[in-house]
């Protein structure tokens, strides 16, 4: 089932929202408009290039998805808190989640995990979290002191 879920999710969300399977779905907080369909994949509102007619800087034939999203965020059909969530600062995309199911990531909380620095705190110089500062190397013993710090 876990293997099938991404396929199923894509089958449901692609036709309606043009889902890009970023694995960290924020549709409800963006007026049910997928921010990953913005050519610049912006997750925190429209760029400065929106045309006078509300169309996209990059694709003039398309309405700016953030113009659409902003309109829809006020829709009386949405639960009230969605309108408030629209203004929240959404964290950077975790590119490792691309292609995975946001449904699973939502249930297990994986989609809300952000890098330590996002929440403001500097991590201890020697992290207690195993592997948190690991880098991919062939021969770790040859690394100079402080490489991991």
């Amino acid at each position, binding site marked *: 089932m876990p293997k099938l879920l991404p396929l199923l999710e894509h089958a449901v969300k692609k036709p309606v929202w043009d889902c890009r399977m970023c694995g960290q779905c924020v549709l409800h907080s963006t007026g049910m408009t997928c921010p990953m369909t913005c050519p610049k994949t912006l997750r925190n509102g429209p760029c*400065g290039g929106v045309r006078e007619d509300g169309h996209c800087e990059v694709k003039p034939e398309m309405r700016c998805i953030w113009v659409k999203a902003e309109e829809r965020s006020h829709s009386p059909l949405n639960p009230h808190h969605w309108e408030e969530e629209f*203004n929240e600062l959404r964290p950077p995309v975790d590119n490792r989640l691309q292609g995975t199911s946001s449904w699973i990531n939502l249930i297990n909380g994986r989609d809300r995990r952000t890098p330590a620095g996002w929440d403001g705190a*500097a991590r201890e110089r020697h992290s207690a979290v195993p592997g948190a500062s690991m880098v991919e190397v062939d021969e770790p013993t040859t690394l100079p002191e402080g490489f991991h710090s």
Partner: protein
Amino acid sequence: MSRLATLIDEGNRPVVTAEFPSIDGGGLAAVEKAADELRPFVDAVNATDNPAAHAHASNTSIAIAMSQFGLEPIMQVVCRDKNRIAMQADIIGASLFGIQNIACLTGDDVTAGDEPEARRVFDLDSTQLVKVASGLAEGHYLSGRAIKQPPALFVGAVENPFAPPLDYRVMRALKKAEAGARFLQLQIGYYPERLENFVAGCVEHGVTRTTALIPTVVLTKSAKALSFMDESVPGISIPAEMIARVAGAGDKDAIAEESYQLTLELSRHALSLPGVSGIHLTDFRHDGSLERLVRDLRIGPAFAPDPVASASGTTSV
């Protein structure tokens, strides 16, 4: 604290910032020449980051060179060309040379430039970058990895009060302010009432309590330049009456004069708004009009020297 941050904090007079011309060849002499022209009239100058998606000498190199020639840089960082690792490295790298003012931008799309085949990156968006850059100043990378003796950055961003969705632009400014932006340079705009609404909204929502608003005006010489911006620059729209007013002024000289007068009016209006901390100048004329403008407005280091900053000997980084 950077000189720009000090001037904004003191709030004794409007700050004047400008756009540095793009540099390709000519070595440091080319930077020095441009720096010499601007230095007397401005407080800080933007080192651009591949503006309009055209490759030029990089933001970091120009910022460093500018500061060596005694001009305080505002280093732009755009999200289009680099991922989060490279952008953090650029900011930290530049800070080694004393660069403190950082302006975080989304960036025009690659399709606006002369290499539309390029891969666009946009790994972070500009609001996220504001927060990440502010984190660097607090002593950590986005990963959480600590930075000993972090740089004293003065982080800002840009906002476009003139592009749809108009009502939402204040909220976006607020989001950037909350993410850590201490100044917002505003996009070029020819709708004074939109600027007025935006600035009033920012005052009302508390944006201006933490964040300086710096509207932009452009010095142009012809109606053609206005039409070009209207048609070809993403996010800029100019009312047809304004273009007609300049076009109908008479001969070439009269048109140039009318263009100047339009810029002067827009500048006066912008500076008259409560909540505005200064003005950003983009000069497409290069005929001494920038000096004329700051003189007519009586702003900037040449025409409204700040007694506090100069007496305390504050120098640029």
